[in-house]
């Protein structure tokens, strides 16, 4: 059984929801990413989304844009991200790691080499923001061959036919984008999420994580009641931005602990 499935099954038995933090690999420094990942797990994260920085992050708001710029300036690359996951796996063989980013760095490396490397270093899932199901045939084939889950996005604008299409392709979990907008936007509408989820559940048998716009313990808690996992990205990346190299792991850990407590309440 995959690490993602094991994780969600275990949480379900405990009647708990997954906490899925996102950080950008290489931000605030190349050395701090792996300690941050361990810190997130220690604070109560169940799945880690590790952002692969891209020069043109079209789906991201200013906070994650700046994180990508910082990481790229330090020389972060897809190869480097894979090495970080290998390093992380030396001490943690249970927590699922999902790479999240845009397709071009993977295209440049080649999907087969990428998928093979993911398997080698212990990546569990890959979410390519700008590769919808229609353009994911090649990616899907290579990821499947190497037991990497293709994670797909669903959005408030997604109609039923597309939900069915994604249901067929998705593995691991499905990421529901809670709002029309970029990451970190401030227009989260809980009742809209609540209304949409039954339509998703009708076709999606995998766990559903909800993200975009979850900014504090209260919203994390409210959203967690509606789904199987809560994804928190910009808020954590902002905490990284506001910290220094000495206190960043502690500050992020404190924030994630608060989120954990709120979700478990």
């Amino acid at each position, binding site marked *: 059984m995959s690490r993602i499935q094991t994780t969600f099954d275990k949480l379900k038995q405990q009647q708990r929801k997954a906490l899925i933090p996102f950080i950008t690999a290489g931000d605030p420094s190349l050395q701090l990413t792996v300690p941050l990942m361990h810190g997130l797990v220690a604070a109560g994260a169940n799945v880690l989304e590790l952002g692969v920085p891209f020069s043109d992050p079209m789906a991201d708001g200013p906070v994650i844009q700046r994180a990508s710029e910082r990481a790229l300036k330090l020389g972060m690359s897809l190869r480097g991200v894979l090495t970080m996951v290998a390093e992380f796996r030396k001490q943690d063989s249970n927590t699922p790691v999902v790479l999240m980013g845009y*397709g071009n760095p993977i295209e440049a490396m080649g999907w087969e080499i990428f998928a093979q490397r993911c398997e080698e270093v212990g990546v569990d899932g890959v979410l390519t923001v700008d590769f919808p199901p229609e353009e994911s045939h090649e990616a899907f084939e290579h990821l499947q061959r190497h037991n990497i889950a293709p994670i797909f996005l669903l*959005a408030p604008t997604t109609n039923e036919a597309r939900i069915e299409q994604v249901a067929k392709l998705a593995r691991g979990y499905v990421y529901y984008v809670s709002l029309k907008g970029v990451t970190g936007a401030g227009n989260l509408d809980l009742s809209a999420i609540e209304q949409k989820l039954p339509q998703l559940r009708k076709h999606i048998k995998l766990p559903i994580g909800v993200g975009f716009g979850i900014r504090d313990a209260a919203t994390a808690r409210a959203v967690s009641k509606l789904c199987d996992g809560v994804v928190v990205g910009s808020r954590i990346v902002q905490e990284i931005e506001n910290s220094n190299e000495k206190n960043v792991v502690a500050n992020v850990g404190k924030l994630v602990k608060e989120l954990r407590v709120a979700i478990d309440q």
Partner: protein
Amino acid sequence: MYNYPDSTGHFGQYGGIYMAETLIPAVEELRQQYLHFRDDPEFKAEFAYELKHYVGRPSPVYHAKRLSESLGGAQIYLKREDLNHTGAHKINNAIGQALLAKRMGKKRVIAETGAGMHGVATATVAARYGMECVVYMGAEDIQRQAPNVFRMKLLGATVVPVESGSKTLKDACNEAIRDWVTNVESTFYIFGTAAGPHPYPMMVRDFQCVIGNEAKVQMPEMIGRQPDAVIACVGGGSNAIGLFYPYIEETGVQIIGVEAGGHGIASGQHAAPLTANAKVGVLHGNKVYLMQDENGQIIETHSISAGLDYPGVGPEHCLLKDMGRAQYVSIDDDEALAAFDALCRFEGIIPALESSHALAHAMKIAPTLSKDKVLLVNLSGRGDKDMNTVARIKGITL
């Protein structure tokens, strides 16, 4: 028979709909609406009416006799898109998309712009049809193209400076996409070039094809036959595909796209993905030849002309290159400036720096050809917007 894109929006391996899920239903709706209205007689009639009475089409073809004589070879003819209302070919597409937006009930339009011509065209049609208009423009381009920024504001548009990345056209695209994903239900994205997710490359081409369709009638009227070559500058490539597309199956006509060579291909500081044989990649919704580093990060481009300063290119040009049907070459900043000067002095026409690239290539090959050969250059825009840039290069303060 040449028939692209296919039903999934691909031109061979190029094109596609590489967008975040939130926008996929929007591009699908756009595709359906466009396919419907494309063949609607009332839509076609209104588009034709606007092109004739508002834009001033057909744009003339002009024989640049003195320039040709000075070169001593092939005859250079100019398709005068610079004479269109708003001063460039961009208005053709902006009207087409605005008429579609109107029919789709969208009251707000957004656009990206590089040189500002597409921004001006979009601001113009938004005023014409009573729509709210927001234009995203790189902060560096705002410096380079100040007069166009003022024009957009006069026309009632909001111009948003984009400070991220290289602060040029690609970053303006990113920001417009972010706006679209946030306001997808109220907003129509008037995309300026024949690139982006399907159906944009096809739709923009179709709206711009009026250029080539007119030329195919005008050239026989003027010289009794089609030209030996059609030449146009290629950034994203909308003016070029508008001229080229109707000539694709005219196999006797050579097709030449001219990219921005910047400081020269060898310098790496250019905006010529096709000429430089850049690696194929994915950006802004489509798979195309794309300037990138070995890690797949998009690299900063350079061109004297803001409208060509873009790391990608439309998917149909990628296919035409691979098929060998079109040839792609580059012209560097200095060559473009020399052509700019030459057209001013020999013909009394001030061309846009973008169009100067196409002209420069024609001037380069004309002397190697006999006097009975004819080169048709798309003079895609006028150069008024480039006064500051050219003055600065000449060391003159306006």
